[in-house]
């Protein structure tokens, strides 16, 4: 019984597929040679050829033809089509065609592999297509648009450029944030230009990196050293500070903002032994008028270790232990909106 049904199902399926093919064939036969369907078919054919070709160069050429036919076919098919919205009349054809052209240019690596360029020139290309359509007269031949047409072209082109400018501004903002990642440590709520869509995530400022790097350098230089050497080191604190700063800054030197970070280091009074206060000072763009300071304290302690050297009597060596606390963020950065 079951096999009977599968048999019926197969027959029905084959029949449906055959009918579909027949309908498609009929539809294909109806296609006028001079129509957008022809272009789309040519595009499909080019891709089929590209798929079959082994040679990479020829393959690339065939696939480019596929794209070009697709672009012309789609722009023809959508020409004059308007969004079915009441009240507004928007020709969306140029937008689709423009997007296809941008994808094509991006894929062919004409734009230096820059996705942002492809996105920025999209409105520009779409506006140009919309403008070009006014030069096509029925026939088809070309014509010079009449003055109202020319006025429309001016406005459409300028509007396209303005949209491109807005997209470009988005990428300019991204570049700024890439050069100044510590901007993301503060809230943009006050801003009248940008809005942060993932407003809950406030990134740590780069100063933390610098402090951690300074801590690692201190551990490396001081931990386990004889106490006397460390006291000598502390006597030259000012010159050691500059060396430490330049070394610690190397961790964030790849960012343009590193010029605005400074490292300060001093001995906290009233603490046992020596307690170093490390500070990363931000003087760059900030919501705070004077910038802000991130702190970290490192305690230098004497520890006695007994060592037995050779055959001699055991001697006590006083060496140094460095223990640092976690970074303390200033009030301005701890407030999450």
């Amino acid at each position, binding site marked *: 019984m079951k096999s009977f049904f599968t048999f019926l199902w197969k027959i029905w399926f084959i029949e449906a597929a055959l009918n579909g093919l027949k309908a498609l064939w009929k539809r294909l036969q109806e296609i006028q040679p001079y129509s957008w369907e022809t272009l789309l078919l040519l595009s499909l054919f080019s891709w089929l050829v590209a798929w079959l070709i082994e040679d990479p160069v020829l393959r690339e050429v065939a696939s480019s033809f596929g794209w070009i036919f697709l672009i012309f076919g789609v722009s023809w098919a959508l020409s004059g089509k308007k969004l079915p919205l009441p009240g507004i009349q928007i020709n969306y054809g140029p937008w689709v065609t423009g997007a296809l052209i941008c994808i094509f240019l991006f894929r062919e690596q004409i734009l230096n592999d820059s996705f942002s360029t492809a996105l920025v020139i999209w409105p520009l290309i779409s506006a140009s297509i919309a403008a070009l359509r006014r030069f096509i007269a029925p026939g088809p031949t070309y014509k010079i648009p009449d003055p109202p047409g020319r006025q429309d072209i001016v406005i459409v082109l300028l509007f396209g*450029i303005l949209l491109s400018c807005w997209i470009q501004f988005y990428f300019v903002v991204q570049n700024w944030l890439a050069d100044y990642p510590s901007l993301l440590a503060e809230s943009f709520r006050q801003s*009248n230009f940008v809005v942060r869509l993932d407003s809950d995530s406030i990134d740590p400022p780069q100063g933390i990196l610098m402090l951690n790097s300074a801590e690692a350098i201190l551990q490396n230089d001081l931990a386990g050293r004889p106490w006397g050497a460390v006291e000598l080191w502390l006597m030259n604190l000012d010159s050691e500070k500059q060396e430490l700063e330049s070394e610690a800054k190397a961790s964030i030197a790849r960012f343009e903002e590193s010029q605005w970070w400074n490292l300060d280091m001093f001995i906290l009074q009233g603490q046992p032994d020596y307690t170093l206060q490390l500070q990363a000072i931000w003087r760059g763009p900030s919501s705070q008028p004077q910038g802000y300071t991130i702190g970290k304290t490192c305690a230098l302690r004497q520890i006695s270790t007994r060592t037995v050297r050779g055959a001699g009597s055991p001697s006590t060596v006083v060496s140094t232990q460095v223990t640092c606390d976690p970074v303390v963020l200033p009030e301005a950065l701890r407030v999450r909106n």
Partner: protein
Amino acid sequence: MNSAVVPLQAIAFQIVLLLTAIAVEAFTFYQRLDISRKKSVEYAVSLNLLSTVVGWLAFFNLQLVLSPNLKRQLLEVIFFDRWDSNIVLVILIAFVTFFASFLIKLQALNLLQLLLKEGKEEVSQQKSRRYKSLIRSRDDVLEPPKQANAILMANAFSYSAILLILLLRILLQTNPTEVLP
């Protein structure tokens, strides 16, 4: 590195300010130049779009060559709305922008009218105009051309309107945020 920081407010503000400027300037053109309402709106749209676009292009290129200190101030304005350290500079920039946009609009209107001329009849009109202007050249020297005057007025009105909007925004905005500790 792309983050979710989007200049939505900048775009929204630009739309509002552009619409205001277009409305004000279209009205001024309609009053001061002998053109139809439709044409005055088209002129205002074209000129304002052009000056905005030129402004953006200037901005994109200038922000690349700013000194570190100026760049810090620019970023403070854009990300944290902090204008305190550079009020004088802002006023200076506003003045430069005003006159630059006036010059751009003046040239653009001439270009636009040239572009929108009908084929043949315009040439003869232009000839007669040139002829007329030869006769009236002395008057023209004395009184500023009507068109430049109209654009100057339109620009002044639209900048005033924009300034008013910005002032209103500052007045409305300071209260709720500054009260918080």
